[in-house]
């Protein structure tokens, strides 16, 4: 216990007296306490930093997991379907209008359908669409090879049995107009798409002259944003029916809700454990310095000054720990984002004040309890080691 022995040199004393006596002494004591007892101070600071880092990472993830999982859910494909009313086609500018309403917050893909006949008279559904966009919209499609050239078709696994079992070029007829197509690849989905032949919209319109009847939209954003989008689309394309795909939106809401709830529970548990750990370490640290406390009291310092000193010390520790922890925590969150979601988690600066306030509060609580205990004792008793 040699923290505040009086081996200051004369010029240091003079310097101290020349300055504002209270502030400089206060700072001096703070600094010396940190330097001279660096072992204990470091372990308290370490605990504080780790706790703040864990809390920062948890809060960042909690905010970000929604965004990340929504992105995964967009792989489900469309969450809004725009269908022409009975027996009509969509207006020619419908796709442009829809894309303008989306304004980059989603993907819109047109589909046109006809029933064509194969050379041996069997019927098959042929669809014209924007193949590049479909590839992005329906990530679950299992495609052996995407068409690239003109008059190349993507043939559903079941349709392939009908049109061309050996993968040779095949003919299709629609209202006396014929087209010869080569099979670029096969498509497996486990649903109705497997019974269809997909062409690029250009080839399809040149052949059949039929315009799209359906636009599938994958709108990104929260459920509220998606329903606003549905309303905007109803306004924008009055000639069509706009239907949200409820099954997907409900699953999404459910999964997101449960995940966030679980994450919140985990965050509370982890932050609580970390706080208790910090509390224990800091209390031990402050309590350990009861001799400093006693000496100050014996030298005539007021209780307010001493309490202020210990509280200031704890608050400084909390703040430094919080800042360091915040930086580390952002790194941890970014790493988790990269490892788990293949995309970094954006640092949320809004978390910083929360972490800072929380850390300083925990540090102050940790300082107040031992001080309250020490205040009751006589300095002489403490110095005697009782």
């Amino acid at each position, binding site marked *: *216990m040699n923290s505040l022995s009086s081996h200051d040199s004369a010029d240091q004393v003079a310097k101290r007296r020349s300055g504002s006596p209270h502030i400089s002494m206060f700072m001096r004591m703070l600094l010396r306490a940190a330097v001279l007892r660096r072992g204990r101070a470091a372990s308290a600071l370490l605990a504080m930093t780790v706790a703040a880092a864990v809390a920062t990472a948890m809060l960042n993830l909690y905010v970000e997991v929604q965004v990340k999982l929504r992105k995964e*859910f967009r792989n489900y494909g469309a969450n809004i379907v725009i269908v022409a009313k009975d027996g009509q086609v969509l207006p020619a500018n419908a796709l442009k209008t829809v894309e303008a309403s989306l304004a980059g917050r989603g993907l819109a893909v047109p589909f046109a359908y006809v*029933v064509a006949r194969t050379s041996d008279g069997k*019927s098959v559904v042929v669809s014209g669409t924007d193949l590049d966009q479909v590839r992005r919209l*329906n990530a679950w499609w299992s495609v052996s090879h995407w068409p690239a050239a003109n008059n190349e078709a993507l043939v559903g696994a079941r349709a392939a049995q009908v049109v061309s079992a050996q993968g040779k070029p095949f003919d299709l007829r629609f209202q006396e107009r014929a087209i010869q197509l080569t099979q670029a690849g096969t498509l497996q989905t486990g649903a109705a798409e497997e019974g269809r032949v997909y062409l690029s919209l250009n080839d399809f319109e040149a052949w059949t002259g039929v315009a799209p009847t359906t636009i599938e939209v994958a709108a990104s954003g929260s459920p509220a944003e998606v329903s606003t989008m549905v309303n905007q689309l109803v306004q924008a394309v009055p000639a069509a029916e706009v239907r949200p795909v409820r099954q997907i939106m409900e699953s999404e809401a459910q999964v997101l809700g449960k995940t966030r709830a679980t994450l919140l529970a985990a965050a509370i548990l982890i932050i609580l454990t970390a706080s208790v750990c910090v509390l224990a370490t800091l209390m031990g640290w402050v309590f*350990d310095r009861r001799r400093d406390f006693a000496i100050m009291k014996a030298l005539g310092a007021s209780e307010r000054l001493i309490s202020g000193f210990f509280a200031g010390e704890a608050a400084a520790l909390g703040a430094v720990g919080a800042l360091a922890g915040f930086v580390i925590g952002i790194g941890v969150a970014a790493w988790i984002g990269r490892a788990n979601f293949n995309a970094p988690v954006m640092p949320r600066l809004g978390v910083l004040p929360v972490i800072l306030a929380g850390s300083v509060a925990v540090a102050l609580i940790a300082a107040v309890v031992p001080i309250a205990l020490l205040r009751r004792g006589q300095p002489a008793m403490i110095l005697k080691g009782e």
Partner: protein
Amino acid sequence: MAGVAIALGAGVATAMIGVATDVGDKISLELRRNHANLVVTPQEDTLDLEIGGVNLKPPSDGAFLNEADLPKIKSTFWRNAILGFAPMLPVSVRLGGANDSQDVTLLGTYFSKPYSYGKDNFITGVRTTSGSWRVVGDWPTDDSQNVLLGERLAAKTGKKPGDTVTIAGQPHVVSGILSTGGVEDDQIVAPLAVAQQILGKPGAVRRVYVSALTKPEDAFARRDPKTLTGAMYDRWYCSPYAQSIAYQLQEVIPFSHAEQIRQVEQTEGTVLSRIKGLMLLLTLAALFASVLAVSAAMATAIFERRHEIGLMKALGAGKAAVAAIFFAEAALLAVIGGALGFVGGSLLAQRIGRSIFDSQITIQPVLFPMILAIAILVSFAGSAVPIRRAVMFDPVYALRGEA
């Protein structure tokens, strides 16, 4: 203080491990209640001509599955992973009287039909496999002649629950209005027997949707079972991949083709593996926080007892003896705290399970020795440095209070 920290740390670790290992299953269970992930169709079926949910193929065309084969679904190896199935038989019918009739699709299915296979009794139908279907009014029973009207169809015809509609010349009571957000909103949904009666093919089923709990697909899952040999085949067959469950369904239902619905299966596979990964990382973070809490508390506890150590040494105790005493204490503390923490953590995990997922989270008993081992290890690690320092110290200084 150290005991409390150990109990707290063990509790948090137990709860997190329990939740993290269960959260994937819980979420996939909920998703499976929302939509099926496998479909069984007749092998030699003609091509469907489906545009926007309306099938242009003549209803009697093509092949059918036999309703009598369906209970065999519950005889597959992974029968416990199969939550339910719903057969579908769409037929096109004329709705309404002679003057204002229209052609609509009537979908025959099970709503919640009790079934038994061997000793198993279970209830299956769309109420199990399509959790997002909502009905205003009542669900029809499977042995009745009552039907559900899709919500857009009901709006078009102005029918309400309790009204009577004429379907293919026969009167049927509308027991409820169905809203699914899909093509069924334009259709009539009726008990399977009604659809079979209209079609004139008793026992006919067009396709069967199956909800099964599966494991996300990996490279091994995509292997063709025909190319696998012996032990590899057994491993593939006995893993709950969507592929192997589909393969087993094909085995039990004659002349059938079973396949995963990729939109559901693939997307959910990714989402679930992301959530599981996140929970795993969080469990690691929780373990780390617990380790930190315990070792900090142990260090503080021992540091505060340096006088005691000084006294022991002054009285002639050797370094080994002092260290042994403290490690023994740490072990005792770890066992008691770990056990208390395990119990508390299990209760906590159950509470979390009940409040978030409305179902129990079961903590595997095998976790208990693991948690105890971790607790002992961590408290040893936390005590090692302070014990070492205390033991090295000259007892005179320790006793004088200058440690």
